[in-house]
């Protein structure tokens, strides 16, 4: 089990809060709309709903916390050049 398409769908659930809400409201329909086949959808039948919400929130905070260091890295690179 597990496919690139399935990993991609999980990555979207972890990074797209609106998609996650649609998924929690109607998991099978949302998974089908994103191209998951019958087998892949069956892997989501008893999904950890609370865990998906925790993961989406946590990953979102991590991405937000990295934006500032990226800016700092850019400025450091510019300082080294000039």
């Amino acid at each position, binding site marked *: *089990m597990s496919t690139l398409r399935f990993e991609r769908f*999980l990555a979207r659930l972890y990074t797209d809060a609106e998609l996650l809400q649609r998924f929690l409201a109607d998991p099978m329909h949302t998974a089908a709309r994103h191209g998951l086949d019958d087998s892949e959808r069956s892997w989501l039948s008893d999904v950890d709903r609370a865990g998906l919400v925790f993961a989406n929130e946590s990953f979102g905070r991590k991405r937000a916390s990295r934006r500032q260091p990226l800016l700092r890295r850019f400025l450091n690179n510019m300082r080294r050049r000039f």
Partner: protein
Amino acid sequence: MTHPMTPRAADTGDRVGLSWRGPLAAAILSNLDRIDVVELMAEDFIDASRAQLGSARLLRSNVPVMLHGVSLGLASVGTVAARRLDRVARVVDVIAPESWSEHLAFVRAGDIEIGHLAAPPRTMATIEGTARNVDRAAAVLGARPLLENIATLVDPPGSDLDEAGWVRETLSAADADLLLDLHNLHANATNFDFDPIAYLDQIPMDRVRQIHIAGGRWVTLTVDGLAERRLLDDHLHDVPDPVYGLLVEVAARASGPLTVILERDGRFPLTSTLLKQIDQARDALREGRARALVPAEAV
């Protein structure tokens, strides 16, 4: 000179150290008599200047250094891009660490960057994918990585193996050793209600080379009208007692020398507090090693 209360375990070869973070530089450099090893983040050096790389080499000349990565995403059915491996390889070439490690995680899928470590579905497909990626990484970097178990807030969808079974089979398929993160184990055992000691009994102790210890905090959310809470591994808090307890258990079971790294990413405490946690880790190692020497019938 070793701290008088906490002699180093020269007979076992066990070592205890700290992960390098900029704000900890002074604390680390002024206490190398009590810090056996230092772990550097690979990603900190991918775009580093010559001066920064020179600093890392200087550090390596004073204390054993290990390299730790977070961005490859080896645990995936997808293939890790060669350019990502090349970037880490350049850092390994320059710093020449004792070892390098990565996580049993996927961090992206196609063009979607998750931004952190996500647990893959625990399946044969991801075991085989991880093994392929480890082979590719070893070919480029010249050494196999130690693989680290990760903390997860979600029970990975699509899994048909439990965590211990998946880790055990992945290490075997990838022919890789384990960096066992004990706070990740503690958090997952707490969040998903399994026995961490039974987990230790299921993984190959002869593959455990390094240990991470850290702290975390409870996070709460309301989902489907119910208040839910999970233990988050945030590296911002002191190491809790259950993690030291697990370290005793690992030291009692492991045959080879262990290198323990205290991870702290922020909310930095006083240096004395960090050193006290390093000392507590040494005490836990000694307690476990002593227990291993006692015949089973005497326990």
